[in-house]
C-alpha cells in the first residue's frame, strides 16, 4: 500500500507521520508537496499536523485552497481513504470535506497533554481494528482544537455514524466531546489528537499501544 503524505508550507508532523508509516508499519509512503498533483498510484492520503501557513487567517484556511486539495477531493470521492490529523483535520474542515469547525480551546491556550479517546465508529478504513467504545491513549497538541457543529448538524452526524472519536474527559469544550469525525461515506476521517505520537512503545508513556490499531486498520484494508 502506498500512502501519500501531503506537505504544506509549515507542516511539521509530516516527517513523524512518514516515519511511523514506513519504519513502524512497513507501508510505502511518499511526500506530496502541496503545489503538485497527487501521484495516481497512492492508495491512501494523510494530511499531517503542523502550522500550514503559520495558522494565518484561521488554522487550515489558506492550505484548504492549495492546488493539491482538488486532487484530495477527487480521490476522496473515489473512496480513497483520507486521514487528516490536527492541522490536517482543520484543513479538511476548511476545504469542506468534513462538517463543522475547529475553534480555540476553551482554555484559550495551546494544550499539549495525553488524553483518552473512545472509539465511536469502527467501520472507517482507519478504525476497523478497534472495537466500539474501545479506549485509546493519545496525545493532543493544539490551540484550535475545540470541535464545533450546530445541533442539527450534530444530530445528522450522529445518525450517519460520522462521529469517529470522542474524548473520555472534557478536554477542550468540544461539542459532544468530539475528537474526530468522518464524512457520511466514512472514507475521510479527521481527528485532533496525534496517532503517530502514540504508535511506538518507547515514546508512549501509558504503556498501552492500542492507538497502533489505526495504522493496522489501514494496512489490513490494503490487504483485503
Amino acid at each position, binding site marked *: 500500500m502506498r500512502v501519500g503524505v501531503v506537505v504544506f*508550507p*509549515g507542516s*511539521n*508532523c509530516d*516527517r*513523524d507521520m512518514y*516515519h*511511523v508509516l514506513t519504519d513502524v508499519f512497513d507501508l510505502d509512503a511518499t511526500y506530496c*508537496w502541496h503545489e503538485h498533483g497527487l501521484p495516481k498510484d497512492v492508495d491512501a492520503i494523510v494530511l499531517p*499536523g*503542523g*502550522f500550514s*501557513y*503559520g*495558522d*494565518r487567517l484561521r488554522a487550515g484556511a489558506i492550505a484548504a485552497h492549495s492546488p493539491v486539495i482538488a486532487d484530495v477531493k477527487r480521490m476522496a470521492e473515489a473512496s480513497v481513504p483520507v486521514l487528516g490529523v490536527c492541522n490536517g483535520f482543520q484543513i479538511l474542515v476548511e476545504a469542506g470535506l468534513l462538517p463543522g469547525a475547529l475553534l480555540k480551546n476553551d482554555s484559550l*491556550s*495551546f*494544550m*499539549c*497533554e495525553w488524553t483518552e479517546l473512545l472509539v465511536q465508529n469502527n467501520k472507517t478504513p482507519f478504525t476497523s481494528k478497534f472495537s466500539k467504545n474501545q479506549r485509546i491513549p493519545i*496525545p493532543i*497538541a493544539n*490551540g484550535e482544537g475545540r470541535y464545533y457543529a450546530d445541533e442539527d448538524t450534530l444530530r445528522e452526524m450522529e445518525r450517519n455514524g460520522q462521529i469517529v472519536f470522542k474524548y473520555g474527559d472534557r478536554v477542550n469544550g468540544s461539542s459532544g466531546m468530539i475528537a474526530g469525525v468522518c464524512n457520511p461515506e466514512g472514507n475521510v476521517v479527521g481527528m485532533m489528537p*496525534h496517532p*503517530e*505520537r502514540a504508535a*511506538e512503545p*518507547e*515514546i508512549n*508513556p501509558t504503556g498501552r499501544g492500542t492507538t497502533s490499531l489505526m495504522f493496522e486498520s489501514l494496512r489490513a484494508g490494503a490487504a483485503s
Partner: protein
Amino acid sequence: MHLKKLPMEGPLVIYEKGYDSGVLDAGGGYVVTAHIESHNHPSAVEPYGGAATGVGGVIRDILSAGTRPIAILDGLRFGDITKDKHARWLFKSAVSGIADYGNCLGVPTVGGEVEFDACYQNYALVDVAAVGFGKKSDLIRNHAQKGDLVVLLGGMTGRDGVGGSQFASDLLESQDRSAVQIPDPFIEKLIIEAVIEARRQKLIHAMKDLGGGGLSCAISETADALGVGIEMDVKKVHTRESGMSPEEIMTSESQERMLIITGSAEIKRLQDICAKFRISCSVIGSVTSGGQMRIKQGQETLADLPASVVANASLLDLASKRPSYLDELDAEPPGPIPDHTRTLELLVASPNISSRAWVYGRYDHEVGIRTVVRPGLDASVLRLDNGRYLAVTIDASPKHCYVDPRHGAAGCFEEACRNVACTGARPAGMLDHLQFGSPEDPEIFWTFLESLGGLAEYSRDMGIPCIGGKVSLYNETPAGPIKPTPMVAVLGLADRPFVAQKAADGDSLIILGDTKDEMGGSEYYEYVHGIVGGACPVVDSAVSRKNMDAVLDLIEGRLVKSVHDCSKGGLAVAATELCMTSEIGCDVGLDVPGGAPLDAALFSESHSRYLLVADAKSLDSVTSLLGKRGVPFGMLGKFGGSRMRFADGKKTVIDLSVDKAQRAWSSSLGDLVHG
C-alpha cells in the same frame, strides 16, 4: 580572556570554525549540536516578541552548523509574582511567545525551569537553549574562496530591531519597544526546510545566522572566521520598507535571516529551493581575497575596513573587588520552627517549587516523536537516530550564587549533572550562559570571576568540557543589578533510556549522599523565613563523582525503579515529589547521613544527593552496591498508604495527605498567574 579558563576540549567535542553552536560526537556517525542564549532586555520590554525571537535566534545557530533543531529548553526568571502584577504579565507573555514560536516551528520544547525572585523586578531573564542533531558528514565545513557569492536568505530587512543589541546592553532605563524584533515563526520554519534541503544538495560553502548587529556583524565575522574579504552592496538587500539608510540596513536585527556563501555553480539550485518555499534570496555581494569588508551602495563605497577589526573587539580585564554586601547578609535564623507540616505545605505550593505543568502544557513537547522522558522530571530524554539517547537539562541557582558566587555556580553545574544522571545518562558536555549586572562595577565583576572559577573547576575535575557559551552583562534596572545568574546546560548520552517507574506499596526510599547544615540561599530560608544569607551548599567534586558513578551503576543494572535529584526545598520536597507523582504515601525516618539537625535534614539543599526507589527484590543488591562503592547512604523508609510522614526518632514531625499536597502543588502556579 577570562572565558578561556573553561576547558573546551574533550574526546567527544568537535570544533569547526565559524560555529555559534557547540558540537558533540553522538556516535555512529552522528553529532549533537547545542547552543544557549538569552533575550533579557527585549523580553523585559516586550516579553512576547522578546522571548519568541530569543527562540528564533538560537534555533538559527543550530541550523548554521547544518543540523536540524530537535529540542528547545528555556529558563525564565521574573520578579515576585505573588506580589508583582507586572511580573505576572511578563511571565505569561514570555511563555506565550515561546509557545507560539516553538510550536509553530515544530521543534519541541522539552524542558526548562522557572524562578521568581525580587531581584528580577521590572526585568526578565529569558534563556533559550536549543539542541540539534544530524550526520557528522552533513556538518557545514565553513569555507569560502574568491568569487563565491554572498547570499542573504529569508525574511525581509526592516526597521525593527535596529540597534537591538546595543539596546540590550544598555541599562534598562528607556523602554524602546522598536528595538525589539518582530517574530515570524512561519518564515523561520520555511528557512529551516530550505536550508536543510540546500545542505542535502551540498550547495552551502559557509553559513551564518543574522543575530545581534545584523548584517554588519554577520559579514565581518564570516569574513574574519574564513580568512577572506567580502564586498557587498546594500542596494541588493531585500528590504521591508523603502528609504532605509545604509546604516539601518547594516544594523537592522530583523529576524529569520541567514547569510549563506555559495558558488556560482550552485546559486541557481539554491534560488530554486528558495522559490519552492517562497522565501526571498538575494545575492548581496561576493567573496574577495584579502581581509577587507567593503560595503557599497551601488558604485559608491561606504565603508572599507579590515573585517578582523569589526569582528574582534577586545575583552577588557576589569577591576574586581569582593562585594561588601557579602558582609551584610542576614544571620542564620532563630532556632527551629514549630510546624513542619505547614512549612512543607507552603514550600510545595511555593512559586519556585510548585509544578511547572502550567508552563510546559503550553509547549508542544511531543512533536518530532523523540521525547522519551517528558518535561516535569529531572532531565528530558530524546531518542536519536543512532539508537542512543540524549538527556538534557538547564539549571541556575541565583539564590546560592548571591550568597556564594563560586560554590553557587559550581552547585548549579553539579545539579544539572545530577539531573542528567537521574536518567541514566553520563554528562558529556556543558554550555554556560553567564548573566550579571554591569562588569564595570568591580563588585559585580568579582562575582563574575568567582562564578566562572567555580564552573571551570568543576568542569576540569569532572572532565566535562564546555562546548559553548555566552555572556550577558548589564542586566540591571534603576533598582539595581540582578543576582549573579550563571546558567548551565548539561547534555548526557546513554545507550538505553531509563524511564522512572512509580513507587509502589512496600518499595523502599533510600537517600544517597550527605545532608549538611547548608541552608544559605535555600528556599526554606528565603521563602519561609525571609532570610538572605547563611552558608551556601558546597560542591566536593570527588564526592560528586563517586555518588554519580554509583547512581549510574544502579541504573545500568536496573536495580532501582527511579532516581530523583534532591535540590530545591531539600529532602522533604524531593520525597514529597516522588510521592505525588507516584500517588502514594511514605513513612520517612530522618536519620540521614551527614549529621544535619532536624530542619536541615528536611530542607537543606546540599549537593550530590539522590533519592532512590527500590523494590523489595532488588533492595539487597542496591545496598550492597552502595556499600561496596563506599558512598554514604541511608534507608529512609517505605512507601505505602496515602500520607507523607516524616519522623525524627520516634516523633512524627510532618504528617501530610499526599492528595492534598498534590492539589496544592499542581494548581498553585496557574492560580498565581490567573490571580
